[in-house]
């Protein structure tokens, strides 16, 4: 049986690991290769490097980090952050990344998804979606059912909606998350990394409704991200959120729990994991 995956995520800036809560208060915490190796020993199923290097001239540092990781770590490595072109994708894969994750560039240039999938295979194109709950009437309600009921624009009875954000969560796009997820699947994305901006950094748990809505709407694996604070949260993402994998940073990073502990907890509750 296919195991549910637990994926630690490292924010990498200028070749070093940092973790900021809600993208602030960054704190240097070591060499990404060493940290990835530690996670591998603990039984992590994959690892994600999110490159948050801002300056353009330092962007090649990540390639060196990926190369060194590929020499030491023998599990799938996904790299995201700042990838804009086919050439960027090629360089990362050639350095030893197994998958690359597109976010802003996928929204600005959806062809990058299909081109990437065509060149390198769908399995290595992950689309990262930053989702924020829509509480107002920003996204009009236009389902067929509501149209016939004359409820166009109604908010009271509207189902939950989420909006896609880009530029590290700073820019709203007006796009509906579930629709965008379906679209990227059609374009050839192999996986969706779904981050709830509302939950990220809160440690109050994943946005289960969001995770479930996307997971049920697409036929590709969905990784839930944002909000993990306890082991129960990881379990809920699988059980209620229907996620195929969970991404977490700080609970593992600050050693609140080890990945082994997380897996034991989840396995005990009947979710298939690789021990």
């Amino acid at each position, binding site marked *: *049986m*296919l195991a549910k995956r637990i994926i630690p995520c490292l924010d990498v800036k200028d070749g070093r690991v940092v973790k900021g809560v809600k993208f602030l208060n960054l704190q240097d915490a070591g060499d990404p290769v060493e940290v990835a190796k530690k996670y*591998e020993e603990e039984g992590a199923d994959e690892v994600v490097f999110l490159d948050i290097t801002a300056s353009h001239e330092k962007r090649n540092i990540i390639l060196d980090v990926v190369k060194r990781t590929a020499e030491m770590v*023998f*599990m799938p490595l996904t790299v995201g952050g700042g990838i804009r072109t086919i050439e960027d994708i090629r360089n990362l894969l050639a350095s030893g990344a197994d998958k690359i994750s597109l976010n802003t560039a996928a929204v600005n240039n959806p062809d990058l998804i299909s081109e990437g999938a065509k060149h390198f295979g769908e*399995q290595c194109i992950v689309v990262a979606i930053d989702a924020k709950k829509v509480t107002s009437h920003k996204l009009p309600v236009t389902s067929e059912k509501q149209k016939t009921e004359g409820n166009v624009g109604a908010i009271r009875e509207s189902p939950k909606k989420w909006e896609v954000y880009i530029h590290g969560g700073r820019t709203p796009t007006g796009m509906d998350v579930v629709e965008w997820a379906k679209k990227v699947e059609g374009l050839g994305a192999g996986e969706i990394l779904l981050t709830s901006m509302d939950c990220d950094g809160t440690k109050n748990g994943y946005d289960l409704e969001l995770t479930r809505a996307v997971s049920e709407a697409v*036929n*590709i694996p969905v990784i839930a991200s944002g909000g993990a604070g306890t082991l129960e949260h990881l379990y809920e993402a699988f059980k209620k959120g229907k996620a195929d994998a969970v991404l977490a940073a700080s609970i593992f990073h600050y050693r609140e729990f080890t990945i082994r502990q997380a897996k034991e907890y989840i396995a005990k509750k009947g979710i298939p994991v690789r021990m």
Partner: protein
Amino acid sequence: MGNLRSIQKALEFLDYRAEVTDDKNKINGASAVVLPGVGAFPRAMEELKKRDLVETVKDGVSSGKPFLGICLGMQILFEESDEFGSSQGLGIVQGKVKRFSDKLKIPHMGWNEIELIKRPDFMEDFPKKSFMYFVHSYYCEPKDKKIILTKTSYGKNFVSSICRDNLIACQFHPEKSQKLGLEFLNNFGRLI
């Protein structure tokens, strides 16, 4: 094809000398050949033809030296695949490559269990069941069931590796499957 660096690094980690090449002479002169691959079946065949390597691969298998096909490198050994209509493969192994049912999440991505169906010498000490990393949307259906080395369950049981004389091929990625994956690769390497 695909992530060649991973497989090279894994072999080097195990102290084998591994070279990524499309040079016929080097392939012919190697003591073992690994045919990796991720991506699309027809494109992989095109690339092999373009580089005039179809016969080289066939010779590699028939030469009797250890030959390992990984993922798409397993699939293109077969006669044909459903991918993009129907595509012809190398035909080194009789059988077809089929797509998983649309009722399942595709690709089949992540860690799944392989179970040994037979135990050839090179897998002597390998656990009967172990987790390996998979990423694929198509699976192989060999005609000769005797060559099946492991099976794996995804919706139904499928063939996750085969072994026929010097030819070994696996759908999973041993180079991405941590300790046991490296052990599988090392078992292959020890055939040299």
